[in-house]
């Protein structure tokens, strides 16, 4: 079974994001970039499926600037077999990303797409669901457990109020939530091996899909700052303050 894993290069989750003074976006110059944490979880799950003998090949795909190759290399070092980079310097919306990934899926014919539920920059939580609709495939989002057997995936999902289990016929899209697994760190030998694994570099025009934006960012601003308050000395003083504030 072939598994496709879309991986996104994003600002590292530890970086304090700064809005540009001209309000055109956030400052990405010289900040640390990493693989989106949810994509790491998706790669890990794919590698575990391969280790169990369920998956036979893992293809990591990224859409982004030339440096997104590093993100693909990270996936290859974790255990993916080969990569595809659709190189673009444009900021693509989830709809465009989903259309490009659909085109890749048309060529690669994977039986399972494992991806992150959300990218921590755009925070859209949209791409997987959109791909599923475009392909007419079933989706199982926010997965905390995935079992694949007999042409089906049984997926436990994190929903409001608890957990839900769905069985989806393959091919299907599964998006990873935080509790699915704990991604491994790539070992040095595997990082070296990953350098020799192939990455196919494409451009958006290779796929003949319309990636024109539908949304225009008018401005990006800083949220209102919350002023810090005071330290209280005791539980008694705290309760007094809460009464004064009218919240008890």
């Amino acid at each position, binding site marked *: 079974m072939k598994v496709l894993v879309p991986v996104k290069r994003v600002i590292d989750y530890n970086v304090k*994001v700064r809005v540009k003074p001209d309000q055109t976006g956030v400052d990405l110059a010289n900040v640390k970039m990493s693989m989106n944490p949810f994509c790491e979880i998706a790669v890990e799950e794919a590698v575990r499926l391969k280790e169990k003998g369920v998956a036979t090949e893992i293809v990591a795909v990224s859409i982004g600037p030339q440096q997104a190759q590093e993100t693909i290399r990270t996936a290859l070092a974790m255990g993916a077999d080969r990569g595809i980079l659709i190189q673009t310097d444009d900021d693509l919306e989830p709809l465009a990303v989903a259309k490009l990934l659909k085109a890749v899926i048309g060529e690669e014919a994977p039986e399972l797409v494992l991806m992150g539920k959300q990218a921590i920059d755009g925070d859209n939580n*949209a791409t997987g669901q959109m791909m599923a609709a475009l392909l007419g495939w079933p*989706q199982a989002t926010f997965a905390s457990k995935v079992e694949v057997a007999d042409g089906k995936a049984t997926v436990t999902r994190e929903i409001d109020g608890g*957990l839900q289990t769905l069985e989806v016929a393959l091919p299907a899209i599964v998006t990873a939530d935080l509790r699915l697994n704990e991604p491994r760190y790539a070992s040095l030998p595997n990082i070296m091996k990953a350098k020799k694994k192939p990455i196919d570099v494409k451009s958006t025009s290779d796929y003949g899909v319309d990636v024109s934006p539908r949304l225009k960012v008018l401005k990006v601003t800083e949220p209102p700052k*919350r002023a810090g308050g*005071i330290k209280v000395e005791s539980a008694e003083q705290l309760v007094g303050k809460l009464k004064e504030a009218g919240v008890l």
Partner: protein
Amino acid sequence: MAVLVVAEHDNASVKDATNKTITAALALSSDVDVLVAGLGAGAAAASAAGIAGVRKVLHAEGDAFDQGVAEAVEGLVVPLMANYDAVLFAATATGKNAAPRIAAALDVSPISEIQEVVNATTFVRPIYAGNALETIETSDAKKVITVRTTAFAAAGAGGSAAVETVTAGAPSAAVTFKGAEIVKSDRPELAGAKRVVSGGRAMGSADEFHNVIEPLADKLGAAVGASRAAVDAGYAPNDYQVGQTGKVVAPELYVAVGISGAIQHLAGMKDSKVIVAINKDADAPIFAIADYGLVADYKSAVPELMGELAKAGL
């Protein structure tokens, strides 16, 4: 312009998150209809009809709606969109699961987690864990939107809309519902609660979380939340997680016990009205946003707080 709100409900009535979504919808247009899809959801449809500002309620029945299956919601909503210019969902797990799917089927870019309606085509939404706000304008003819409910007041009672039955197509054969484990609780729902008490990694065990956080929450009539670290360690269930990738809350009172205040956690609670932090580390980042910080070991501070609350008549 006509707007459709897809309701969340428990069959008896629509959820508070939907009342808030209706408020966002009314900021777009005065022609707001509500879709109530479920199994035995007649009472919920009737309750939606009583919400002020609602023009009409559409009521659909089916197993798959009860289970929130996105494919089924897509099959129901996409044809209805012939009559609407926008469809709004609350940005809950259910809403986020279905909305992008419908957007793709309509070939539009979804607009996620809006916190402000500037005008019928322009919206404000948080990005980068709420560290930046983007104002975006859409050129799509139809809009598919999820709403950050903490940013909108709930639409109240006082409506008397008609309820119309709509029929749904056959459910998708590719998805089978296998079961759900929903935690039954008498506590208020985390997302809409007026008070929230959250525990962090400092709890050290599920028992400690249960013995420290829950009684304090119950004393305050609060919902229980947790940091990711506490959830990952198994001290609290998954859906207690507050933060960028969990639930976003904005209660009147948020009490963080043994939580350091990582940006991903702050993203989910920094819009609370009053924030209290109990942490033994005076330099914990949570104190930078807390209105009232108590530098103390929770092991003594929480029992003391319980005692003081009791003295105050709680």
